[in-house]
């Protein structure tokens, strides 16, 4: 097979769905116009632990337009079959309206359905729920850890960390506290559910249409093929839509009980209760080093929060094992079950939390030893993965730092803390490593080439804003030899060929490789048709010598000899050609595969007020081949904004007396606004990694946020001389 010319891939194209988004025509979950739809509003618990003793619905039901109020008192029939496909956490998921138990503050306890949203909202406020409350525990720092490690995490040890620490030239013993964060996508979670007999269709905000399909089939006890999940546009998610939460079931249940299609959109306040969060951590790190800055030992003892009914896990061990060449490592992870809802992976899950700890500790070590922070990291660069002894598929962290240091002007820095001042502002710069796994999943795609020379390619994947519509169009266009304009990519429908969840940065690699495979097959099919067709100018040509460009098949090196797809299909009386392809990662790779980043930050800290302002940031990334540079740059800059939020602003506050989240709104849970964000720069190293994927990509969406918070924390230290081992870094900590 002759390689196709690269035209669309690597070109800085604007989003193919841009016009829909700037005209308000992109349809998010709650935007779909479904005939006869009525409105549901959830009533949630005002205690964190206990029993419901009564639900008085009389006032609510007396409201005009109210169609019904549903709670556990109605004993709604739900099957809750095992769902091994998309229920990731050991324990048992929350069952909706099946008993009188309250497990966390904000748990759904009833739903009101009415013909108008106004009536449903008002009626929901009139539902009176009485409780028998028990004392609740929601404070990670006080709750006892569960015996034994979290799921999928064994205590890890290599070498003898205690002994190595005892004999180390230099030791650090550090304690960190990371606050809980909420994803807070701009779109609140919403579901529209409609039953047609025993067939269920939902328009849902989900990062995993197949996962939601499996969960609904399991909860309602119906065959998988009876459930269809549609999610063509997603207003951000950052992980919160990676599972079907209780409200999805409630919408479908209400639709079944009321006998009408039902729309249910969570309020912003409800987004803090039942759609997951990045858990709070307490983390102790000990570090041993030689005087010359060679790490000899690292120990990680940490605990994080989970619910009492599910054991949450996330990838918080990998960085401690593979980021630096440390001969002696021990890790002891623990979970603390509390009267809270279950966390869910938030952008850079696990990695972001552990990177903050490791990368700020490396900065402390650099200062203690008097070694430049970049140089310290380079002295501990491993030649192979220290946890598996596997070679790296690619690891260009050294180059990331070299390119970044030059572009950022790192060498001009006076390394002494509190050495640079600009009026009232103390100026500092900091650096940190970012690193994230290359996750890979099975994916399939379907492509159809029509007689008019246009193609439609589809896969049950998603576009949370990452640019999937655009990047897949680019891959397909080059593989088919079509212009981008003549290719349409479709996604977000569980009836399409299956694709993994849009999480863990696996979409470009997995679905992209499936799209490549599918479109290669389709192109080869067309070429075969041509070279075997006596009437084709390509008759008899070796198929390996044919390329397609701009919808025209021709002999490589002889553009004059060829014909278009349209001519080929018309002459052969074919209305279309189609192909279905796939990508399946090898079961065990010989390589250690990660994306890498060097993050640089400059901050200004008001010497008297403790106010921190980010002045500029630069990220340099080793993410493999970049399919869609314009969109990849946007993601990187967006990752910096997310990291700035985590570093300086974001903090879910719980009143531990009753488990209430007191800042469950966007006025009190602070996220970065435009005025918080200076010019940010992102640079992707040119290159590709064909050991990681057939299309040469690694991972990107998580990677770009991982090292941001520690780079900022290190810059704050450089500016002020104050080391803050908590997230977020608040003014109070700097006063």
């Amino acid at each position, binding site marked *: 097979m002759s390689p196709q010319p690269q035209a669309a891939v690597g070109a800085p194209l604007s989003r193919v769905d841009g016009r829909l988004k700037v005209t*308000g025509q992109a349809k998010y979950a*709650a935007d779909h116009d479904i005939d006869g739809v009525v409105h549901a509003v959830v009533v949630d618990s005002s205690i964190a632990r206990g029993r419901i003793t009564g639900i008085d619905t009389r006032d609510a039901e007396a409201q005009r337009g109210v169609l019904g109020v549903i709670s556990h008192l109605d004993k709604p029939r739900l099957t809750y079959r095992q769902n091994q496909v998309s229920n990731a956490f050991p324990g048992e998921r929350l069952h909706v309206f099946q008993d009188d138990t309250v497990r966390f503050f904000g748990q759904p306890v009833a739903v009101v359905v009415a013909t108008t949203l106004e009536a449903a909202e008002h009626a929901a406020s009139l539902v009176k729920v009485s409780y028998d409350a028990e004392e609740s525990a929601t404070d990670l720092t006080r709750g006892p850890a569960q015996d034994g490690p979290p799921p999928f995490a064994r205590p890890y040890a290599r070498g003898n960390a205690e002994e190595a620490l005892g004999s180390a030239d230099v030791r650090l013993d550090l304690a960190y506290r990371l606050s809980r964060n909420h994803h807070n996508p*701009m779109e609140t979670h919403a579901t529209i559910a409609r039953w047609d007999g025993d067939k269920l269709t939902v328009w849902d905000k989900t990062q995993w249409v197949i996962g939601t399909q499996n969960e609904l089939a399991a909860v309602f006890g119906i065959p998988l093929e009876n459930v269809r999940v549609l999610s063509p546009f997603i207003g951000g998610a950052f992980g919160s839509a990676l599972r079907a939460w209780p409200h999805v079931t409630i919408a479908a249940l209400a639709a079944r009980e009321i006998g009408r299609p039902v729309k249910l959109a969570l309020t912003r306040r409800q987004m803090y209760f039942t759609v997951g969060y990045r858990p709070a951590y307490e983390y102790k790190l000990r570090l041993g080093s030689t005087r010359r800055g060679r790490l000899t030992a690292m120990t990680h003892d940490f605990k994080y929060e989970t619910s009492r009914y599910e054991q949450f896990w996330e990838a918080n061990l990998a960085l401690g094992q593979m980021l630096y060449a440390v001969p002696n490592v021990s890790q002891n992870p623990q979970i603390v079950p509390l009267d809270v809802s279950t966390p869910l992976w938030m952008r850079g899950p696990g990695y972001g939390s552990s990177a903050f700890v490791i990368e700020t500790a490396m900065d402390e070590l650099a200062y203690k030893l008097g070694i430049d922070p970049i140089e310290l990291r380079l002295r501990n660069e491993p030649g192979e993965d220290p946890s598996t002894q596997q070679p790296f598929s690619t690891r260009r962290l050294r180059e990331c730092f070299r390119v970044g240091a030059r572009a950022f002007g790192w060498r001009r820095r006076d390394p002494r803390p509190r050495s640079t001042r600009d009026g009232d502002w103390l100026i500092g710069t900091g650096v940190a490593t970012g690193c994230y796994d290359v996750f890979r999943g099975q994916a399939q795609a379907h492509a159809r080439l029509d007689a008019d020379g246009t193609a439609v390619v589809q896969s049950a994947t998603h576009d949370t804003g990452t640019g999937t519509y655009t990047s897949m169009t680019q891959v397909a266009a080059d593989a088919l030899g079509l212009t981008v304009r003549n290719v349409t990519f479709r996604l977000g429908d569980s009836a399409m060929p299956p694709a993994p969840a849009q999480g863990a940065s696996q979409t470009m690699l997995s679905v992209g490789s499936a799209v490549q495979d599918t479109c290669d097959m389709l192109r080869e099919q067309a070429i075969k048709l041509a070279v075997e067709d006596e009437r084709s100018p390509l008759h008899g040509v070796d198929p390996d010598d044919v390329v397609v460009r701009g919808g025209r098949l021709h002999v490589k090196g002889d553009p004059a000899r060829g014909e278009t797809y349209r001519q080929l299909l018309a002459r052969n009386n074919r209305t279309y050609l189609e192909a279905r392809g796939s990508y399946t990662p090898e079961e065990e790779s010989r390589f250690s595969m990660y994306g890498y980043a060097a993050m640089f930050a400059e901050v200004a800290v008001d010497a008297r007020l403790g106010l921190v302002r980010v002045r500029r940031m630069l990220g340099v990334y080793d993410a493999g081949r970049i399919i869609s540079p314009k969109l990849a740059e946007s993601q990187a800059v967006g990752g910096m904004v997310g990291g700035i939020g985590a570093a300086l602003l974001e903090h879910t506050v719980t009143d531990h007396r009753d488990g209430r989240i007191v800042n469950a709104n966007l006025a009190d849970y602070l996220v970065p606004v435009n005025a918080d964000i200076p010019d940010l720069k992102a640079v992707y190293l040119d290159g590709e990694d064909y050991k990681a994927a057939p299309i040469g990509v690694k991972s990107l969406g998580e990677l770009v946020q991982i090292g941001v918070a520690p780079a900022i924390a290190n810059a704050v230290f450089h500016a002020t001389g104050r080391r803050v081992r908590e997230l977020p870094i608040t003014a109070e900590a700097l006063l």
Partner: protein
Amino acid sequence: MFGAGPADAAQASPSSRVTLTINGERRTITVDNRTSLLDLLREHLGLTGSKKGCNAGACGACTVLVDGRRVNSCLTLAVRLDGAEVTTIEGLAKGERLHPLQQAFIDHDAFQCGYCTSGQIMSGVGCIDEGHTGSPEEIREFMSGNICRCGAYVNIVRAVEQAAHGK
């Protein structure tokens, strides 16, 4: 579990007739007095381009122009808009021709998920009309009522600059 039938009239919410112009089209509508402009647009008129991000005036996703001024439509009761002129994202383009700020948002990739985009663009139109585009700092300040969780702020500022100054 379900109400026996239509509740008596005492439980019905008062409603009012208002006449307002939406995207150039004059309409007379009977609205539940509790209805916000945002819910009127989204749930009653099928104009779902304006988004509900917080329903509390904190995020800006619902921003529209009322009599030329940008407002949070979630905090604006429809019943008080008698005689008002409302412009939403659906009314910004002239036929197929995009408003310069819509085009600038595409050119600069000033969005990712697109959910805050309608509000950002309506807010940007207001910001430009108000003359608050003298510098990137000024644009940042006057565009800070619109949250973008994907973090497209750098490109939003560039897009507003382009539309304001033809850059």
